[in-house]
């Protein structure tokens, strides 16, 4: 049994949680009764079920949300830093390096303290952004259009991060209570 369907099914068993073992044995038995042309489709479905069972748990949802947010924040930090080093921002380079460090801090906080860390980071970032915008409107300085756009973008990014983290936490709690 070394056909593609069997390989896909073996991946499903490897990915699937141990507490669903009886269901994987049930699927494996059924696979033997399925006509050859339909076996790959059936095995792919089993792989999808394994992924659902792996992720759709309180811990799985927390880990997936946390991993996604760490990756997103770290990617933003890397992107901003690389573009700054390539000279894309001219005199604004120090501010952009600061922004890169800020997103890197978000990635570290999320990796270290999970979704709670991301919520604190995003709320802190939104508060900081608001203080800066308030200082502008108070006549502290006149920012360029680029900086204004950057501030709006930061609001959107941080609100999205906060939304994903809050949703991940709520979903994990709901799954916990539903068990």
């Amino acid at each position, binding site marked *: 049994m070394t056909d593609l369907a069997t390989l896909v099914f073996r991946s499903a068993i490897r990915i699937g949680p141990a507490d669903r073992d009886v269901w994987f044995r*049930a*699927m494996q038995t059924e696979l033997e009764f399925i006509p050859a042309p339909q076996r790959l489709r059936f095995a792919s479905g*089993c792989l*999808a*079920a394994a992924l*659902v069972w792996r992720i759709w748990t309180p811990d799985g949802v927390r880990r997936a949300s946390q991993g996604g947010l760490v990756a997103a924040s770290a990617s933003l930090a890397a992107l901003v830093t690389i573009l700054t080093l390539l000279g894309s921002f001219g005199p604004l380079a120090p501010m952009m390096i600061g922004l890169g460090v800020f997103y890197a801090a978000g990635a570290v906080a999320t990796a270290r303290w999970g979704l709670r860390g991301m919520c604190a980071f995003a709320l802190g970032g939104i508060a900081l952004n608001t203080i800066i915008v308030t200082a502008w409107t108070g006549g502290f300085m006149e920012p360029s259009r680029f900086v204004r756009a950057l501030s709006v973008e930061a609001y959107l990014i941080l609100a999205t991060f906060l939304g994903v983290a809050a949703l991940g936490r709520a979903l994990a709690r709901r799954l916990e209570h539903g068990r």
Partner: protein
Amino acid sequence: MVRPRNASAQTRLLLARFADQPQAWQYGYELSRATGIGSGTLYPTLARLSDQGLLESEWRPSLHPGRPPRHAYRLTTAGIEFARTQSMKAVAASNPRTGEALT
């Protein structure tokens, strides 16, 4: 045991299939073929119904000689009742007047 909530359309389809022959043991592949529900949805649904105490399962000898025993499923008494409730809700949703008359 988890308290069952309102069932999805696919779960209702599956429940209806079981409710047609409540005493008969049914197999995964046949259920998938009869309902058109793929294995990726079928098995998580069967597992959830089982976790909720609505479905019972057992390994039954295969009718084909030399083949391994198969995992078979049928509704429990609570499952039959739940299937009936869901069916009535579906009827009520599709035709509010009839639904009122039923309840």
